[in-house]
Every structure is written in C-alpha cells, then in structure tokens.
C-alpha cells in the first residue's frame, strides 16, 4: 500500500508539471499557466478529500494508533 501511495505521490510530483511546461511552450503566459494549474489541482484535492472523508469506516479509528 505504501509503495502504491509513493508511486501516486511521484506521479503527482512530476507528470502534471509537464502539462504546465507544455502550456508555456504553446504560448500560455506564466500567470495563466499557474491559474489553470491551480484550478485543476484545487478540484483534484477537493474531490479526493471529499471522497476520503466521506468513506464509511470499516475498522475502529483510534485517536493515536501506533502506526500513525
């Protein structure tokens, strides 16, 4: 599980920025590129957070579990 999350982290750390680089290459200004990127990331993080916080718990959630 941890490896899969690390892979997701690495994909997030590297691939979206290629889109930003492509936008700049195609003539988008830096402010517009940042704005578009911010909107996409904001939608992504909000949707993922909403989905995660709305998940039904399948196990008890201790406040301070030893693996946290």
């Amino acid at each position: 599980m941890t490896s899969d999350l690390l892979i997701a982290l690495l994909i997030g750390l590297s691939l979206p920025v290629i889109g930003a680089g492509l936008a700049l290459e195609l003539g988008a200004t830096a402010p517009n590129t940042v704005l578009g990127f911010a909107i996409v990331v904001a939608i992504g993080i909000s949707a993922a957070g909403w989905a995660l916080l709305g998940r039904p718990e399948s196990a008890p959630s201790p406040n301070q579990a030893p693996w946290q």
Partner: protein
Amino acid sequence: MSASRSASERRGQRWSPSFGFWTVAFAFLIVMASATLPSPLYGLYRERDHLSAFTITIIYAIFAAGAIGSLIVDRFVVARFGRRGAMLGAVSSMMLSAGVLAAWKDLPGLLIGRLLTGVAAGLAAGTAIVYLIELRLLANPAASVVRARTVGTSVNVGALGIGPLMAGCLAQWAPWPLALSYLILLGLGALTVLGLLATPETGQPALPIASAIQARGSRRSSRPPAPAAAAACAAFAANGLFAGLSGLFLATTLHHPSHALAGAALCLVFSSGVVSQLATTTLPASRVLAVGTSSMLAGLVLLATAVRLASPSLVLFLVGGALIGAGAGAVFKGTTGLVLESSAPVDRVDDI
C-alpha cells in the same frame, strides 16, 4: 539488550544498530536531496543548452520514470540483496547520477542523470523507512516505531527541500555552479557507503525470487483506494510545479533571478510539509486531511493571485508556497492514516 547484542553478533556487524539507524537516515537524506537538487539550476541549464520550458519540465519529470520503476522492483531487490543492499544500491545509483550530471554537459546527460536519480530515489523511498524501523527495533526491541517512522517521513519530505537550497546557494556564491553540488553529493555518498557497509542487515537477503513474487501477490488486497491515490497525486502536483518551474516563474514573472532564492523557495515549500506533519501528531487522520486540504486551497489562491497582480508579489508567492507545502504534507499524512485505519490489522502491520 543481550538479545540485541546477540543478534548483532550473528550478523557480524561492527557498529551498533543506533549508529546504523542514523547512517541509513543520512543515506536516505542525501538520496532524496538529489531528487530536487537541480531545480534551482534549470535556469543555468536553459542558458547553457538553449532549452525550452517544456524540455526543462521533461528533464525534471523523467526522474519519476526511474523512481516508479525501482519502486515496482524494490521488493524483489530487497528480497535478493536485503535492505542494506537496496540502500547501497540507492546511494550508488545516486553517486552515478551525480557523476553523469556533473561530467556530461549536454541534454542526453541531463536526461540519463535524472533517470538514474529517480532509480536511486525509488530504491531509497521503498526501503529506508522500514529499514529505519527495523534498526530501531534491533537496537531496542521494546521501542515504539513511531519515532523511527517520524524520522523517516520527515527525512523523506525535508530532504527534497535541502537539496535545492544547497544547490541554489552554491550556484549563487560558489564556483562551478553546474558541478559543485554534484561533487559534494559524490563525496557524501562515498562516506555513506562506508557507513552502510558497517550497518547491520535486518532483512533476509537471498530469498528466492519466486517467494518474493508470491509475497507480492498476497499483498494485492492492501492497495490504497483510488481517492487516496488521487489525494497523494494532487497534493504533490503543486509541489511539483514549484520544483519544476518556480525558478522560471521567479526569474521571468517576479523578476528575481537569484538561484539562492529559487532554492530557498523550494526549501520553504518542502520544509513546511515536514513542519505540518510534525505539528499534527496528536490530531486524528481525518482532521489532518481536512486541515491539509484547506491549507492547500488557500495556498493555491495566494499563488495564483501572486503572479496575476499588476505588480507580482514575491511575499504572496512564498506564503502561498509555504501553505501549499504544509498542506501537501498534511494531506499525505492524513491520507495514509485514513487508509491504514480502514485496512485490516494484518495489512497495517505489513505496511509499517
């Protein structure tokens, strides 16, 4: 104590597990620092090789291909060579990449060097935290794993900020801006290899490959749900924007071409992630995720505002970066905690 001593003697080690713990932590730090180290130097590479912004992002992002590849095979590497072997492989790959990046002054050298950097980062990221926990338990079987895991996760994110800070400052104020940082990494790597050779092995090397494949198959059920992967991906996308393009934005939009400032900005982003992870140790995972998401959204608004003002604001840019970095760290921590809480106890132990 006697149990750990006899375990040490069985493995023929010369140094204590505690020394090995900090050696592995340092190895993890320099390997992860190399992942983002070239970020403040992209402006110089751009001038030297006449590269476009798109090519710069490819050079930056290609490391992920190497990292993902080595994360996928990491389990087999550990099964064959042990955790110490995997960490030695990570440091050796990092040293090879530093050598390539310092000596091969052309675009293919940059691409190959970054790919090798990714291989090193993937090997270290997949091995180091478990190795640290096992070394901690080897030193003291009754110890809590929380401290070891906190050290591991803090090094993981914090090192991503240390690398660019060092490279930016050296590029600004020292000679050989496109070589010196890599030469320092080479020297540190050589010292670390010596330390790792004397660090106890905690895994079971030379396990048959078939057993490792079987073990991998039995773990498929513990994959994180899609929202967790999406959260990790989205959280670090904004960090990636800073790592790949903040130097360009600082130079062209904000009119601050300092390499040191580019490195410091990245250090601020990633160190904020460490601070947020350490500051939320008493909060439940759901609260950490909610706080992290809010911080990221506020940071994204400030970032977009900073570069769109009639007179772009460096302060807003940096504050936005700090909030984004802090939010990303908290989102990743909250996501991991939520997934672990909702997984079966056997998977939780397996994932520690």
